[in-house]
């Protein structure tokens, strides 16, 4: 574990990490694959910008494979370039190489939150780490909403963490504009295209596609689902067919944070097999009669294990419940949620900075990569590619 030097402070914005990046493809040396994104149409590489010897992340979209996504990718680049916020992803350069679109972004040393969950925290991240992450995401959402956009794809794989422990929101290719013809709309109605993979995170009102429409409060619901994802290790509705997920949301069943307060039967027997997602809002005898069986257990290792001893604070529970309310009018805005007591926890509990909370995850920093000499760098990169990184979702 390489800990941060005491006096090292995060830069104001992550785009000043490596200075200026040019659009010349020959100046980038790709070393290893970090992950996939965009339904295999895109790949994320670890690369070096040769003029400054800076490690960066380079995302390559195959234009032949990503035909349907081309508009989204184009919009993402245009929109991201217009935004400037420490918690919103940065695009340093974008260019076309053969039949690929290449997008250069700063290297996010801890990868995406989905990576962290998949590789190290299968039962969920520590609560204090989640508080740090969600606060940064809220800052990003507040900024994006005030710019008149709805993100529409808030999920763990779209939250990246840099070496200083700052969370950065990505996945802007699904965003849509709330301002139309110069007028701020109360609601919009467009259904995001090629959004199949994000469906589980989307709000009931967006999925309903009726005349009511939806607005930026839809993102707050997605944030609630993401909170559950970060806490539980697996995404809510993961095993549901999309149509069942839809009816569940329309009927107002919201996912919950899984601990022994939301699933009391675990503390008694520890061998119940019903789906904890169903527990909320159901009479407890219904649970004991094995109601959730047909929904299927998700094979999460939490069952009967860590869940019995785990307890999230009431602050966190209340925070997720606020976000996951069925009526969008009742959900607080991003600015209001930033004042929630959940975000005062780290300070009150004297929490160490996020990188330490994520111990023993080793970030992909310059020090680790040893970029002082480029030979070493490629050596490490080779070793990196030996690791099982291909399965990770680095979707930004």
């Amino acid at each position, binding site marked *: 574990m390489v800990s941060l030097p005491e006096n090292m402070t995060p830069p104001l914005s992550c785009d000043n990490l490596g200075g200026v990046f040019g659009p010349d493809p020959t100046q980038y040396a790709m070393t290893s694959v970090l992950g996939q994104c965009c339904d295999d149409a895109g790949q994320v590489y670890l690369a070096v910008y040769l003029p400054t010897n800076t490690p960066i992340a380079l995302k390559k979209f195959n234009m032949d494979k990503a035909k349907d996504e081309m508009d989204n990718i184009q919009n993402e680049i245009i929109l991201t370039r217009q935004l400037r916020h420490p918690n919103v992803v940065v695009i340093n350069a974008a260019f076309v190489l053969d039949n690929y679109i290449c997008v250069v972004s700063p290297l996010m040393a801890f990868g995406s939150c989905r990576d962290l969950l998949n590789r190290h925290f299968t039962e969920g991240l520590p609560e204090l780490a989640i508080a740090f992450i969600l606060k940064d995401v809220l800052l990003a959402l507040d900024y994006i909403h005030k710019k008149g956009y709805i993100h529409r794809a808030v999920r763990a794989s779209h939250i990246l963490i840099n070496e200083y422990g700052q969370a950065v929101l990505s996945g802007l290719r699904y965003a849509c504009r709330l301002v139309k013809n110069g007028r701020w709309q109360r609601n919009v109605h*467009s259904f995001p295209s090629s959004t*199949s993979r994000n*469906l589980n995170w989307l709000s009931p009102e967006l999925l309903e*596609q*009726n*005349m009511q429409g939806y607005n930026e409060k839809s993102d707050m619901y997605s944030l609630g689902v993401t909170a559950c994802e970060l806490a539980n290790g697996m995404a809510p509705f993961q095993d549901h*067919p999309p149509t069942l997920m839809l*009816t569940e949301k329309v009927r107002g069943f919201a996912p919950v944070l899984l601990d022994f307060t939301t699933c009391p039967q675990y503390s008694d027997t520890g061998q119940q097999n019903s789906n904890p997602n169903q527990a909320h809002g159901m009479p407890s005898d219904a649970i004991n009669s094995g109601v959730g069986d047909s929904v299927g257990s998700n094979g999460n290792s939490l069952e009967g294990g860590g869940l019995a001893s785990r307890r999230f604070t009431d602050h966190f529970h209340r925070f997720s419940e606020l976000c996951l309310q069925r009526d969008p009018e009742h959900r607080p805005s991003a600015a209001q949620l930033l004042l929630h007591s959940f975000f005062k926890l780290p300070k009150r509990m004297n929490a160490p900075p996020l990188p330490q909370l994520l111990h023993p995850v080793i970030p992909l920093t310059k020090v680790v990569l040893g970029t002082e000499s480029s030979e070493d760098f490629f050596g490490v990169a080779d070793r990196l590619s030996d690791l099982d990184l291909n399965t990770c979702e680095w979707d930004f």
Partner: protein
Amino acid sequence: MGSERAEEPIHIVYSDEENVLDEEERNSRLFEDLEPASWINDEDTDVTTFFHRVDSDQIIYEAKKKRCKMIGKYVMGDLLGEGSYGKVKEVLDSETLCRKAVKILKKRKLRRIPNGEQNVQREIVLLKKLQHPNVIGLLDVLVNDEKEKMYLVMEFCVGGLQDMLESTPKKRFPLWQAHGYFCQLMDGLQYLHSQRIIHKDIKPGNLLLTLSGILKISDLGVAEALDFFAEDDTCYTGQGSPAFQPPEIANGHEKFLGFKVDIWSSGVTLYNITTGLYPFEGDNIFRLFENIGKGEYVIPDEIENPLRDLLHGMLQKDANDRFTLQQIRQHPWFLRKPPQTLEEVPIPPLRGDELHNMTVLPYLMDYHYVEDPASGQPQYYTEHERNAWAERGEQDTYPTECYPREWADQLGDLKSKESSPKKFQDDVGYGNSNKYHGDDEMETIADSTKRKTKRRPTSCISVKKFPPCKQS
């Protein structure tokens, strides 16, 4: 519309919409076993022995169950409308959860319409290559040879301009609203013409709106694609709606300029949506064509000048004098949006539902939450109650189609019966229809006790057999 109702008389329970006969068929079969009513004239016959009086609260309906049915990966919903070629129903893509509409075409029915099959083939070929925000998108085509049916999956629209006009007392839009639609119509039309396509049937009924309020030109059933090597836009056939036809077609010209046909129809459409009137009318098609042929019409006084001039330009009797698309786009009325003074005409509710909720949801609710479809308590209601609902203005709104109530019921059910949500069984693979005897359309009901008996549908009146009549 009339053939597909949410309820059936209690004696006849048919769940399969295949068995619903066409209106004519139903009427013809309904009376086939009745003798001609010559006996009514018999002096000594008391009519009441033949016609039993039935009080409206003695006719009992059973609420139709919302059985989930799939076509490929699409879950079927309720009827959205009915055209000459067949029904249009709402569907939900079970993978992307995106609302869509499906046009169901029966070959049996198409054969009876002149050029029916040809028109459909042409529409498919045309729509497939078109892509523009203001032209309806064809997303998928499914064919069931066994049932001789074709399914055209299209973008979902909540309503059309015609329904909106009819829902208002004056049958017209405020100018600013009409302007918005007209501009979109011109955008779509310009695209179609750029693709060498003449729509030939522009009218409010063929202009639909999405949830976001985007206008979609639909129904390219009679559209014509110009030959790639054609010198100009000369056409020889016109099949559009009579009231929107230009003088050259009304006068029976052998050939005419295609693009100008669409300009004329768009002019009639603009006239119609801004005044609530038609420039040409007639008791029958001959009178109508006579009037159109003369090309004389009046624009109501309330229509002021930039618009008046535009209408005159678009409704020129001589196609050569008629405005071109470019002239329209440069016209002062087109360029300047009228002030938003009057209130917007909204899209009217569908069967009482102002929000236009997904009609697929109740079917999904039934599929996922009702434990055993056969054991569910049947719901009954009487003709009397039905009439009462109708009187209260809940036209076509019967309990089975009221979402909130149904959900409440479902929720109550769930709690009381402790039933659990059902998952799609893995073997009921979406779109994997090959397993099902190559049948593209299947009912995804969990239990296999599905009734396939072909029963003759009858109206509630004919259920009551007339015993004296039978004997005679």
